[in-house]
C-alpha cells in the first residue's frame, strides 16, 4: 500500500503518538509506550506493520512491532552485535593500536523497509555503526558484515557526531533496484552498495567538512540525513553538518547548494519531492555553537530549482522568541502535505507544500521522529 499521508506517527522523548487525518482534521488514534523515549517509529508501507525503536535509559534499546496500529505490541529481539566485536574507544584515532571497547547496541537510529519485491526484508541503522538486516519480517536480525568490516571503519575513520559513536541514520533502498542502497553515517559519510550489501563504496566526493583540519577526507563527513527522489533515483539530497549538498549522479559527486545569504544551510532534516528531484525542503537552525531556530524565528526553506534559490516559508510559524530545532527524522512529506516536529514539542502541518502551516500541538514531548504512512 502506498503512503497516503493520512497517518502521522510521532516518536518522542515520552512515547509514540499516532494520528489519523479525518476530513481536514487530525485525530489522535493511539498512544503507546508513554514515558519511554522512542528513537524512531514508522509504518512499513508494504505490510502496514507499525515499528518502534525504544531507547530505555536503563534497560537498553528495544524493538517492537504492532500489526493493529498501536493497540497491541509485540517485542521482538533487537539487533545484537556479535560476541567479541569491538569499536575504537576514542574519537578519531589514527593509531591502529588505539584502545578498543566492546561493541554493543547503543541506539536504534532508523528502521527501513526493503524493496517492494522483498517484503520480508527490513533494515535497521544503529549506533555504534552497524547496519542490521532482517530477511524474515523482523523476527531476527543480522549484522551486515561487509559494511562493518569496511576498511575505513577498521582504520578508525568512523567517529561519533552528536553521540559517542558513529551511527547509521539514513538507509535508502533504490525503488528502481532493491539491490542498490545508500546509507548515511555520522560521522563517516555516504556509502553505496549495488549488490544487495555484499560490498560498499564510499560516496563522499565533493563534500567538505570544515570541522576537520583537512576538510576533504575520503571518509569522515557528517551527513545529518540523506534522501533520494523516488521518481528519479539518481538524484540525492543531504542535509550535512556543513551545509546542504545535492547529487545528480547517485552520489558519485556532490555539489554544495546551501543558501549564501539566508537561513538554509545548517540543519538536520531534509525532504525531497516524490517526482521532481529539484524540489526539496529543509529545516534551518543555527550551527554548532548555539543550535536554535535562526533569528528566533521558525521557518522551513524550500527550493524548486535544485538548490539554486531558496525561499523561507514562515506563514503560521512563530517568528519571535522561538528556539525550536527539527531533528533529522522530524520532517516528512507525502504529496502536498508536509509536517515537522521540534525539540520543544511543537508539531506543524502544511497541506500546500509548506506555504502555510497549522499547529497540531504545542505541548508534545521532544520529537525525535515524525513519519507519514
Amino acid at each position, binding site marked *: 500500500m502506498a503512503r497516503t499521508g493520512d497517518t502521522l506517527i510521532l516518536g518522542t522523548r515520552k512515547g509514540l503518538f499516532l494520528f489519523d487525518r479525518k476530513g481536514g482534521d487530525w485525530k489522535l488514534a493511539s498512544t503507546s509506550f508513554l514515558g519511554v523515549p522512542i528513537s524512531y517509529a514508522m509504518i512499513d508501507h508494504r505490510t502496514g506493520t507499525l515499528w518502534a525503536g525504544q531507547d*530505555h*535509559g*536503563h*534497560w537498553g534499546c528495544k524493538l517492537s512491532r504492532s500489526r493493529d496500529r498501536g493497540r497491541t505490541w509485540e517485542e521482538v529481539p533487537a539487533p*545484537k*552485535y556479535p*560476541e567479541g*566485536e569491538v569499536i575504537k574507544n576514542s574519537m578519531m584515532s589514527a593509531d591502529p593500536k588505539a584502545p578498543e571497547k*566492546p561493541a554493543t*547496541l547503543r541506539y536504534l537510529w532508523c528502521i527501513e523497509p526493503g524493496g517492494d519485491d522483498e517484503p520480508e526484508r527490513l533494515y535497521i541503522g544503529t549506533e555504534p555503526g552497524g547496519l542490521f538486516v532482517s530477511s524474515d519480517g523482523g523476527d531476527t536480525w543480522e549484522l551486515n558484515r561487509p559494511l562493518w568490516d569496511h576498511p575505513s571503519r577498521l582504520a578508525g575513520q568512523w567517529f561519533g557526531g552528536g553521540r559517542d559513536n558513529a551511527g547509521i541514520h539514513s538507509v535508502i533502498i533504490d525503488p528502481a533496484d532493491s539491490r542498490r542502497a545508500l546509507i548515511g553515517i555520522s560521522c563517516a559519510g555516504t556509502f553505496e552498495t549495488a549488490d544487495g550489501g555484499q560490498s560498499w563504496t564510499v560516496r563522499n566526493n565533493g563534500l567538505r567538512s570544515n570541522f576537520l583540519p583537512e576538510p576533504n577526507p575520503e571518509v569522515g563527513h557528517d551527513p545529518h540525513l540523506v534522501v533520494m527522489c523516488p521518481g528519479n533515483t539518481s538524484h540525492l539530497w543531504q542535509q550535512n553538518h556543513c551545509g546542504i549538498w545535492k547529487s545528480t549522479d547517485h552520489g558519485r559527486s556532490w555539489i554544495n547548494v546551501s543558501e549564501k545569504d539566508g537561513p538554509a544551510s545548517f540543519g538536520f532534516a531534509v525532504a525531497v519531492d516524490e517526482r521532481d528531484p529539484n524540489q526539496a525542503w529543509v529545516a534551518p537552525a543555527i550551527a554548532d555553537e548555539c543550535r536554535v531556530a535562526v533569528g528566533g524565528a521558525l521557518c522551513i526553506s524550500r527550493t524548486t530549482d535544485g538548490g539554486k534559490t531558496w525561499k523561507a516559508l514562515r506563514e503560521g510559524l512563530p517568528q519571535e522568541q522561538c528556539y525550536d530545532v527539527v531533528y533529522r527524522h522530524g520532517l516528512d512529506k507525502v504529496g502536498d502535505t508536509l509536517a515537522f516536529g521540534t525539540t520543544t514539542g511543537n508539531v506543524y502541518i502544511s497541506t500546500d507544500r509548506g506555504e502555510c502551516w497549522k499547529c497540531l500541538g504545542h505541548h508534545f514531548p521532544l520529537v525525535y521522529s515524525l513519519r507519514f504512512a
Partner: protein
Amino acid sequence: MARVEFTRHLHRFFPALGEQPALEIEARDVAELVERLEARFPGLAGYLLDDQRALRQHVNVFVNGRPLHDRQSLSDAVDSNSSIHIMQALSGG
C-alpha cells in the same frame, strides 16, 4: 536458594515479577543467576545485560547489599543465603 528482588520499574515489562515479593533462585554466581532468570522470564537478560553480556551501564545488582564487583562477566559468588537486589541506576534516568 538466593533470594532475588527486583525494582518495580521492571514490572512494567515483566508483570510476573510483580506477582510475588521475591524469587528463590539456585545459582553459584550472578552470571548463572541471570541465566536461570532468563529461563523463567524470557527476554529479561536482555534488559540487564548488553550485547556482550556485561551488566548494562545503568543497571545495578547488589549482592548482600554490596554493589556487583565484576560487571563484565558477573562472576560474583552467590550462595543459598545470598540476598540479591536488581535495580536501575539513577544515572540512567
